């Protein structure tokens, strides 16, 4: 992590205000090439805001965001996607009136610069296992399937980094294990990740490197084991 060429994403001093409320108050994070970092914190600590700012959905007020050595600060989402970052949503946002295949195709066509688009779509469908549902309207999928579709849509843009926002929420423990295996498989193909999660167990199955945040700022970075012994982390999670 000490050499700058090993850093894929460097976020520094991020501030995001909503009126008077500072949702992010000087948040920083670095993610190395090919690494997975877990992002944890209590409800309302700003985890999803971090993802929304990095992916360009919200414009930050102060700070810097560098990806692959270049600034992506305040760029619109589609440009950030073209630089190689994509994400999933806690509550899936499929293009409901389009088929699964159309959902993924459009991301392959507009989101990735190079490569055979048909091949890209086929690969994304295979990874998430939605081949049999490819002609189904996205609106008719189950919640778990819509999450997989969101993941496939992100993968079809050929990202270098994936921001995974609370993908476990609302899934059964069996589905959880399956999605964890899938993310590990995706990571092995060379995609770095930030995994936002409420469930420490889910993060633990993916990485040992975790950032804990509270009130829009950094609280802790280190191994999950150390986090579970850290006084401050225990305090914000248990509310003592």
């Amino acid at each position: 992590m000490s050499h700058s060429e090993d850093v894929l994403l460097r976020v520094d001093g991020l501030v995001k205000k909503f009126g008077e409320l500072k949702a992010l108050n000087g948040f920083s994070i670095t993610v190395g090439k090919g690494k997975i970092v877990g992002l944890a914190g209590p409800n309302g600590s700003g985890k999803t805001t971090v993802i929304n700012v990095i992916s360009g959905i919200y414009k930050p007020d102060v700070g810097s965001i560098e990806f692959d050595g270049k600034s992506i600060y305040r760029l619109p989402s589609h440009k950030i996607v073209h630089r190689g970052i994509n994400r999933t949503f806690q509550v899936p946002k499929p293009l409901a009136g389009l088929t699964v295949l159309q959902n993924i195709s459009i991301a392959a066509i507009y989101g990735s610069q190079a490569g055979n688009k048909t091949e890209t779509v086929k690969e994304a469908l295979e990874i998430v296992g939605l081949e049999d549902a490819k002609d189904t309207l996205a609106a008719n999928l189950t919640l778990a399937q819509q999450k997989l579709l969101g993941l496939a849509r992100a993968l079809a843009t050929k990202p270098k980094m994936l921001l995974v926002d609370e993908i476990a929420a609302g899934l059964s423990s069996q589905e959880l294990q399956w999605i964890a295996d899938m993310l590990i498989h995706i990571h092995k193909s060379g995609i770095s990740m930030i995994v936002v999660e409420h469930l420490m167990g889910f993060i633990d199955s993916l990485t040992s490197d975790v950032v804990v945040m509270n009130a829009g700022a950094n609280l802790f970075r280190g191994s999950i084991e150390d986090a579970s012994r850290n006084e401050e982390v225990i305090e914000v999670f248990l509310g003592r």
Partner: protein
Amino acid sequence: MLSKYYSSLGAIFVIIFIFVTLPFVYNNQSFLFNMMMYLALAEGLNIIYGFTGYLPFGYVGFFGAGAYGASIVIMFLRISPFLAVLAGGIAAVIIGIILFPLLRLSGAYFAIANLAASQALYYLVANPNLQKITQGPYGIDLSSVYNANASYYLMLGVLVFSMLLVLYMRKTDFGLSLLAIKEDRVTAALAGINIVKTRSIAWMLSAFVAGLCGAVFAWFTAVFYPSTVFNLNVSVFTIVFVLFGGMGTIVGPLLGTLILYSMYNFIGISTPEYFQLFYGLLIMILVLFLPNGVVSILQHWRIDVP
């Protein structure tokens, strides 16, 4: 390879056949012209409403801009009405570009702001202080270049152009990207679509079609007033026709216009009070029970509607 276009091209050929042959057996050219005009306007509105979800209540503003753009060019530059019609289309696109900021609004806010913009344009054009350019409230007289037959077939050309545009949007990645924006802007952006650019192109295309319609209407009618070409009924009729037929398809707006505009001419002109009652009830029924129009019934029976 071309087979995916067959049914759509078939629909376009039927329309051409109808409007080329009908004048020989039915001599109300004005009715046929207006029918073609509303068909083209419905397809033009379909581009922005059917594919992006923006409902432009001020759509008539582009129509009026086209009518006045073409007329001013004819009066001052004395160029061929065919070229002037193109200028009318461009005038509407320029108005569209000026109104780009409205696209930041959504839903009813967009509809109302667009309506207000069209009325502002109406009062600007009708302003007596601009009489040297627009003739102000006294209207336009193009009787020196009047040619009913030429303008009739030019309207058919504009109609075919509008249908080909919608066909293009139905069959290409560009149309799919617009539908994606309509479904969910955030997800569309994360698919890598440049939302501002894409919807602006659709907006300009939609304005261009309305501008062409207004321009040909000006030529066909020859004498008209600001209140004729900025008449809000043009927006309302077009929107109802598209809603009734079913947006997002080529055939939906065609069906809606053919059925409702015919009906308007049979009962609307003889007994206007019943007609307004009928249209009012129809809009209520549509919104409540058939929001995707007549074509949704066909689609429900698994008939592929081009």
